[in-house]
């Protein structure tokens, strides 16, 4: 349970971090909060020769309203998602999801950027990027680019971040007075990985759903949007019939794998139950 020996670098700018990686021969890992990486190192699932500690780069910090977008620095910690007033007001799905992320001591050190960059398909925050329609700002040798969440999650633990690149910020479209949202997950114990979880963000016109994004996690190799469900609900008044149709449509969106604890059919059933509960919350949230 001890990590293999490695070297350690502590850059103070993004440019310095990228250069350090570039000259490392690629056998390097960035480390921020380290709450997923350090266990992986201890179990020797990963054994890089160099750790590049990005936790002391000031430009990766801070939460700032920029017009219709909230810029959340990659080093923002999970516990800040629970307490930050800008997140509570403008990106409340993160606030809703945060209590479900691991345990208090992990939330004190784990970072939003790290969670999204790792892209664990059972994690809450990556899926919320999809639900919120966030954009991920990535720094590379050619400068910074913004990738929509829909194009960010590619395969299991694989994202649009190329080797050596760095996720620097999360940009979230701010919610308005006509938005309603809901988050929940089903887990055996609080803090455990969810059997299935989901977040919904909808914009209403009266009782009519003008647009909706529904993102699920723990249902496959990446977090997933339920696009068929979204199509069923868009332009409709949210009532019991609409909810039942959305639940029925979920089978077209999700094809969860069998695993030793949870058969695929059970997971799909639980996803339907969760979707019904969340839509019920949206119905009464007016």
């Amino acid at each position, binding site marked *: *349970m*001890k*990590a*293999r*020996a*490695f*070297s*350690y670098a*502590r850059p103070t700018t993004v440019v310095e971090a990228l250069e350090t990686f570039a000259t490392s021969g690629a056998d390097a890992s960035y*480390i921020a909060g*380290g*709450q997923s990486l*350090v*266990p992986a*190192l*201890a*179990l020797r699932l990963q054994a890089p020769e160099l*750790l590049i*500690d990005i*936790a002391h780069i000031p430009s990766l910090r801070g939460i700032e309203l920029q017009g219709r977008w909230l810029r959340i620095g990659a080093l923002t910690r999970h*516990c800040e998602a629970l307490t930050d007033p800008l997140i509570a007001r403008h990106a409340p799905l993160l606030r809703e999801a945060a*209590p479900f992320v*691991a*345990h*208090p*001591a*992990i939330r*004190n*050190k784990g970072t939003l950027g790290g969670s999204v960059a790792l892209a664990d398909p059972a994690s809450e925050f990556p899926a919320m990027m999809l639900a919120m329609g966030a954009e991920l700002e990535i720094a590379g040798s050619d400068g910074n680019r913004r990738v929509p969440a829909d194009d960010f999650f590619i395969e299991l633990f694989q994202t649009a971040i190329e080797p050596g690149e760095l996720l620097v910020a999360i940009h979230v479209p701010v919610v308005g007075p006509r938005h309603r949202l809901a988050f929940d997950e089903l887990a055996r*114990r*609080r*803090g455990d990985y969810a059997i299935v979880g989901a977040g919904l963000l909808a914009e209403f016109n009266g009782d009519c759903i003008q647009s909706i994004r529904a993102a699920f996690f723990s249902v496959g190799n990446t977090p997933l949007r339920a696009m068929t469900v979204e199509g069923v609900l868009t332009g409709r008044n949210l009532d019991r019939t609409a909810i039942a149709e959305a639940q029925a449509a979920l089978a077209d969106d999700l094809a969860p794998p069998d695993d030793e604890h949870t058969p695929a059919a059970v997971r799909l059933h639980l996803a339907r139950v969760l979707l019904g509960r969340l839509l019920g919350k949206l119905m009464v949230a007016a």
Partner: protein
Amino acid sequence: MTAPVNIQMTVNGEAVSCAVAPRETLADFLRQGLELTGTHTGCEMGVCGACLVVLDGQVVHSCLTFAVQADGSVIETIEGLNDRSVIADIQEAFHARNALQCGFCTSGVLMTAHSLLSQPGVPSREQIRDALSGNYCRCTGYEAIVDAIESVARDRAAAPAARQIEEAGA
């Protein structure tokens, strides 16, 4: 190169300067380098909570932090909390209610309790259990731990003035 790196930090109020291997966790550094063995290493992967310490004001797993990452930080271990007497009432409540048996998890549990009880208000039993969700205890079944923390929360809320006077005199 994986050669030792010089680090400086404040541990329990004292300045510490040391050379550590980059792969050495903060938990191992505290226990072996500084002989502060109140911090326990159980799972060494951030699950059991026996290694919790206060790092720059927040409770974190010392097994999930390399000592080099903590260069420049202010750290307080269970020894520090004990010596400052800030958890004396929690320790007494644990004793009175048999909230420990083998004691392996206790320093981590006390860290969690200290963090929770440093926040305003009296937490509900559910909130106490949620706060303890990252601490494994294989002896007590948690009931006595929750009882002890709840009783301290109520006592502190009932007598904040008396406590302040007591602390000022201590």
